[in-house]
Each structure stands twice: as C-alpha cells, then as structure tokens.
C-alpha cells in the first residue's frame, strides 16, 4: 500500500504547482483579446495611441506570459513524474487532449507571440493584427483542450475499462470532446480569464488617472476594459450557474457538499445562504435558508429532487460492495484470463470497480475488508463540506462584487465622466487581486470537490501516485517552492516597475515618465 504521506505530498505538490500556474494563465487568456480589441482599433482608426496601447499592455502581458510558460512545462510533465499510475490508467484518454493541445493550440500561440513582439516593423498593419488574433485563438484553444482533459476527470464519459491492459480505454472520442462538463467548464474558465484581463487593465488605468498621468492613454484603456469586463463578468456568472447544473454524479456529490445539503429535501430545495456545517453529525448547526432557489438552480425545475449527502452515501455504500466483488474478480482474471465464470462476474460489477478500489486505501486484499473499513470508504466518498461551502460562497461573492464594479465602470464610461469619480477609480485599483482570488477559489472547489477521486468513480486519488520515496517528494516540493518564490519575486518586481512607469517605458517620446531606458 502507498503511504498516506506520499499521497498527501504528491497532492500538495500538484496543488501548489497548479495553483501557481493559474496565477498567470487567466491574465494571458484575457489579455490576448484585449490586445486584439486595441490593435483592431489601431488598424481601423490609424491612431498611433492604439498601437502604443497594444504595445504597452503587450509588454506587461509578456512579463506575465513568461511565467505562464515556465510553470506550464511543469504541468505537462508532472502527470508522468508524480502520477505514474494515473498516467498509465487513463493516459489512453487523458493524454490525447494534452497532445492535441500542443499540436493545435500551443504551437499557434507560441509561434505567433514571437511575431507579436518582434514583427511590428516587418509586417503590414493587417498582417500584424492577424498575428495577434491567431495568438489569441491559440491561447483560447489551448484552454479548451486542457479543460476537455479536466472535464473528463470530473465526468469520465466515452471510455471503458479493459482487464487485459489494466486501464481505461477510449471508446468514443466525440463523447470526450463534447462532454457537457468540459464545455461548461471551458466557457466559465475562459470568461474568468477575460475578467482577469479586464480588471488588470481597468485597475492600472485607474491608477494613472488617479495620478493624473497619461490621461488620454488611460481613459481609452479604461473604457475598453470596462466594456470587455462587464460582458465577461456577466458571462462568468451565467455560465458558472450553468456549470452548477449537475449533469454527472461527480457534480451531484460536489453540489451537495458545497451546499451543505445533508438531507434530500422535497423539491424545490432551499439554498443555504450561510451555514455552519457539522461534519461529525452530518447536519448544519446553523443555517439561513432561502427557499426554492437551490432546486431551481440545480434542476431547472420545481419538481425534481436534488440528492443530499446522506442519500449519496447510501448509494455509494452499495457501489463499494459491488466494487469489492469487481476488484476480487479482476485479480482472479489477471491470473487466469480464461476463467469464463469470473469474467462474467467481473463484467457484471465492472461499473463499480473504482468504488471497490477505494478500499485499497485500507486493505490490500479488498475481499477481506472489515465493515469498519467499508464505513470509512463510504465516508471518504464525500469531500469535506465546510471548506467547499465557504470557498464557493467567497468565489460567488467576489463575482457579484466584480459585477457591481464593472457595471459602474461601464455606466460611467458611457456617460463619459468616469475619470471624475475618484471613488470608482479607487475601487477599481483596490479590487485588482479579486479575479485572481476568485479563480483560485474556483479551482479549489472543482478539484477538492472531486475528492477522493482523480477520475470520478474510476480511480481513487490514493492509487494514482508514482511509487516515489517520501524523501524525493520533500526534496522536489522544496525545490518547486524555492524556484517559484524566486520567480514570483522577480516577476512582481518587473510588473510593478513597468506598470508604474506606464507607457513611457515604450520610449516613444509621447508619454509621461519617459526616463532613459532603465
């Protein structure tokens, strides 16, 4: 059996490196379209200021992009280095979108980003705009394929287990591609990226306006960010609601946990605005409930029930017992593939194989699992409620806060007097970190909410890791933390420095703060 410490360290390393990577990704995703908008304005109007906007915001985009690339390399290889059994077990399905991402999207993005920065004097205006658009398309396609891969972890469609190869195998590529979980996740996630890009431009422009610097440049940037940001935050909220619509079982479990819904309530269920979940007794010590809302959001109906945690647990107990038979049969079948009777038994229970594997955390020979072990495995099937309940509410709260900000920013942009509203500019400046916090909280809900699985219902997290020594994990974890801290310090230093200097850093002679090349 794999030690719990090894599993926990592997999870911690993945969580740290993934969440760190996602500090840079959303800004890249959002900025690409903002650059396209600015450069389109340049090509259409011929006004140099739009070119300068594209170049200056592009410069900040580049500083961010460098770390996105750096930390992305880790992600592409970490499945192999630290999640070897996972890679073997689901590589047949999971590897394909990652490889196609490289071929279809990342090559496009990375090749054209070079021309975006260096091609200004060598390309016609229209050619350069095309380069910028292709860079944006590549970036967004990249997100699509990664989220198809991630969506499959939440809702593993289009695949079957093969006892000969001991792994999941793809049977329907289109099902993997058009997985409703993946599609909802994609639009929600890229929209969150657009919001991040918009907030970045909005905040820094507000900073210039508050200082009375580079006013024309900042005004134009602010308006673009306000309009783009408002559209994007609406999309995040509407499509986030769509991804809360539970299509698969994984989402049902996640939904019940993040709503602290212990009981299956008569339809339409109420929504716990605030609650103090009590995991030990499986109830809420305190709750403020809004009637009907949960049922309507979750089922789009007034009469369908949403299963509560207790009901899900009961179903899972049955699946674990059935899975126990599947694991036993599989182990026999591996020794004697010709045994037709065992094969029939296995095929009857193969759908619950993953649930049987949950017992492997407690016992090697799952056939000998005690009732206590089975109870523990049942309890494992529900992620911890309180962290999900609160992170989800915080994320949603931030979403509505940003809706208010972008709403006000757009309103006063249309009226044309936003630059005379210091409260608005200050709010925009101080809310700069909010989209990043929301993105990280969102990923926490998505990934923590899928536990104890790496692939819902198929492969438990504790079986997915590489058989490395705990010492190796401590070493690599220390290395990643050290490198990433150093890189973050360097990146923030440059970002703050160039953001503060503003468009003067282009050295065109047209802006404030035009000191000699630092």
């Amino acid at each position, binding site marked *: 059996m794999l030690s719990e410490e090894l599993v926990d360290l592997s999870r911690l390393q993945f969580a740290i490196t993934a969440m760190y990577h996602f500090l840079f990704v959303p800004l890249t995703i959002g900025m690409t379209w903002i650059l396209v908008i600015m450069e389109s304005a340049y090509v259409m109007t011929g006004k140099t200021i739009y070119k300068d906007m594209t*170049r200056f915001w592009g410069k900040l985009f580049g*500083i961010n992009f*460098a770390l996105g*690339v*750096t930390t*992305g*390399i*880790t992600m*592409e*290889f970490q499945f*192999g*280095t*630290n999640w*070897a*059994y*996972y*890679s*073997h077990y689901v*590589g047949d*399905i999971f*590897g*394909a979108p*990652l*490889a*196609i*991402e*490289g*071929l*279809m999207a990342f*090559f*496009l993005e990375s*090749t054209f*980003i*070079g*021309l975006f*920065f*260096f*091609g*200004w004097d*060598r390309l016609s205006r229209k050619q350069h705009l095309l380069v910028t658009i292709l860079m944006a398309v590549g970036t967004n396609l990249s997100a699509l394929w990664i989220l198809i891969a991630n969506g499959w972890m939440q809702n593993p469609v289009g695949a079957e287990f*093969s006892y*000969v*190869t*001991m*792994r999941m195998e*793809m*049977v329907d*590529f289109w099902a993997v591609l058009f997985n409703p979980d993946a599609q909802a996740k994609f639009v929600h996630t890229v929209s969150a990226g657009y919001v991040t890009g918009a907030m970045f431009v909005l905040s820094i422009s507000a900073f210039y306006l508050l200082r009375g610097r580079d006013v024309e440049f900042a005004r134009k940037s602010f308006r673009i960010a306000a309009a783009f940001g408002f559209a994007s935050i609406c999309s995040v909220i509407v499509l986030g609601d769509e991804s809360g619509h539970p299509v698969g079982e994984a989402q049902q479990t996640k939904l019940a946990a993040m709503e602290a819904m212990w009981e299956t309530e008569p339809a339409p269920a109420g929504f716990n605005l605030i609650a103090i979940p009590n995991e030990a007794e499986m109830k809420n010590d305190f709750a403020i409930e809004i009637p009907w809302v949960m049922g309507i959001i979750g089922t789009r109906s007034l009469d369908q029930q949403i299963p509560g945690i207790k009901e899900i647990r009961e179903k899972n107990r049955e699946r674990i017992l059935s899975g126990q038979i599947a694991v036993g049969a599989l182990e026999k079948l591996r020794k004697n593939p010709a045994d037709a009777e065992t094969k029939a038994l296995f095929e009857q229970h193969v759908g619950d194989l993953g649930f049987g594997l949950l017992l492997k955390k407690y016992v090697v020979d799952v056939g000998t699992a005690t009732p206590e072990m089975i109870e523990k495995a049942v309890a494992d099937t529900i992620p911890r409620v309180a962290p999900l309940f609160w992170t989800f509410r915080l994320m949603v709260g931030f979403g509505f806060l940003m809706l208010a900000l972008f709403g006000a920013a757009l309103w006063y942009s249309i009226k044309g007097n936003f630059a005379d509203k210091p409260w608005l500019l200050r709010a925009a400046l101080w809310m700069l970190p909010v989209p990043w916090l929301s993105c990280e909280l969102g990923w926490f809900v998505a990934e923590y909410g899928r536990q104890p699985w790496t692939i819902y219902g198929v492969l438990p997290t504790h079986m997915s890791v590489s*058989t*490395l020594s705990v010492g190796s994990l401590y070493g*690599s974890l220390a290395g990643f933390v050290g*490198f990433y801290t150093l*890189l973050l310090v*360097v990146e923030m230093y*440059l970002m703050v420095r160039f953001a503060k200097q503003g468009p003067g*850093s*282009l*050295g065109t002679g047209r802006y404030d703060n035009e000191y000699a*090349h*630092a």
Partner: protein
Amino acid sequence: MLFDYPTLKLIWWLLVGVLLVGFAIMDGHDMGVGTLLPFVGKDDVERRIVINTVGPHWDGNQVWFITGGGAIFAAWPLVYATAFSGFYWAMLAVLWALFFRPVGFDYRSKINNPTWRQTWDWGLFVGGAVPPLIFGVAFGNLFQGVPFHFADNLMPYYTGSFWALLNPFALLCGVVSTAMITFHGAIYLMHRTEGAVQRRTQTAMLVFGSLLLLGFSAAGIWLWQGIDGYAIVSAVDAGALPNPLDKEVIRQPGAWLANYDKAPLTMVLPALAYAGTLAAMLLAVNRATLAAFVASSLAIVGVIGTAGASLFPFVMPSSTDLRSGLTVWDSVSSQLTLNIMLWATLIFMPLIIAYTGWAYKVMAGKVTAAYIRENDHAAY
C-alpha cells in the same frame, strides 16, 4: 481512414522519433545558442545579438518539447508513466533548467544592470546545456536497461537511484547529445550573425562538431564491444492488446547491433550522422550557412535515428525484471487513440511547419548591433 493495430504501433514509433528529431532540430538550436551565449558574446550588445537570433522563435520551438511530452503520454502512456517517474530527479533537473529560459529571454534586457543581465545569461546557459546533457544520459541508460518492474496491476516501480544514472557510458552519451545540440546551435548562430560573434562561433562549431564525431564513434564502439543488448525471445503478436508482462526477454551481447544485420538499410542512419556533421562543418566554414543548417539537421536525424534503430523494438528495457521492458508493441495506447492521434498529427503538423517557416521568413536576416540599438526597448 483507420489503420490496423500493428501498423499503427510502428507508425507511432516513427512519429515519436519525428517529434524527438523535431525537438532536437528546432528547440535544439535555441538551446545550443543558449549554451554558447556567455562564450561567443563578449559585451552586452554582442550578447543581445546572440539572444535576438532566437528571440522571436524560441517559444514556438519549445512547444516541440511540450508536444513531445504530450504525444508520449497519449501514444505510449506506460513509457510516459514509467520513464518520467523513474527518472524523477533527472526530469526535475530538466524542468528546473528550462525554467531559466522563458524568464531569461524575456526579463534579461528589461533592466539595464550588468549583474542582472549576466545572471540571466548564465541562466540561459543552464537552460541550454543541461537538458541535452540529461537527455543524452537518459538514452545512455536505456541502452544498459533501467532498473524497474511492474506489479500485477501494472503499477511501475523504479528501484535504481539518480546517481546510478551517471555511469560512464551514459555520460558519454550525454556528451554526444550536448555536442550535437551545441554544434547545431552554432551553425544557426553563424547563419544569423556576422563579424566577431560569427568568427568566435565558428571556432565553437568546429570544436563541437569534432567532439560529436569522436563521441558518436566512441559510443558506437562501446555499444558494440561493451554493452549487452536485449532481445525478445517469445513470439511477438504485434496486433495483440498491449501487456508488457506477456513476453520473454534475454540479455545478449551484440543485440543492439542485430537490427543492422536484419535490415542493412538502417546503416544509412549512422552514415547520415557522419556525413551530415562533416558536410555541415565544411559548408559552415565556407559560409553556406543555410545549407549547413540543413546538413546538421540531417546529422541529428542520423544520430537519433541510430539510437532508435539500435534499440528497436525496445523503448525502455528493464535490467532487473527483463519481461517488464517496454517495447513499441506493448507500451502503446488503444488502437482508437493511436488512430485519432495520428490524424491529429497529420492535419496539424504541416500547418505548424508552414507557419513556423513563415515566422522565420518574416524575421530573416542578420541580427546586427544596429538592430539592437534601434530596438533598445523592444528587443530582448
């Protein structure tokens, strides 16, 4: 159109080879330039010249590495799982060395401070020199067999240590690989520079080209005389569902050269390594640098092709549990996945080559001191 399973397994062996060669040619010349950077650029302007020869392209070229990783994940999941977790510290060393590249390229010239810039120059050196060294060492270990085995449920267990990877033969392979990449980078750099930088680079090119020829010959002799190969002795059913435990393997002196007897045409590969390197050296000295780049690319095809053809059908033999050794027949994905991935590659690879070519065309020409001065704020 869908291909049958044995054909697909062979095609994917070739395609992984193509991706590896593509990586070595494209990302390789950037890495070679990085390795040479502190030595051929004597002042800041010269170093910026060197960096800007690859400035617009390194990022796109690095995707060969990322896509190579993704393709191995998709096509050879067992290799991806076993090799990357087994070679854990070697992989991390590659990743951490690569960290220096994006930040080194993008951040170096944003601050005009000699210490800052020199630090990133050495960072780019590490990012250029360490990955090819480690890839070479890894290949050297593949020839000797890697200490790993599978449990019944195909959970891979690696039982060696990181330090055992650094044995003399593997280190020699590391030298060959680094020499090849640096040589190739030097030729690219000669193509894009002039004057003093080009002269210094020529010296480096001749040194690394000679080192490549010597190292490649030495490794070949060593492989022939001193390293036992591996051979499958049970019947191979190429169309079977992949199961690496379902075969019998023996260790045998000279087995790594057996393919050259069986298919004499494969002798073209080592010949290409020699001919390509020699031709590239000659052409570069005569300033036919573009032709030299083609020749050194062919040399890379020869060197990597020689390694692949010698190992075939093995990808990663096991030294401790011989039957666990991974081959092109039994470490692959399902037929459906291989088919889908093949079509994805056939559709997108020509597009990638086309727009990459266009990007090089747009940025073509020598990078000069005047260019750096005029683009002080925008260039790397």
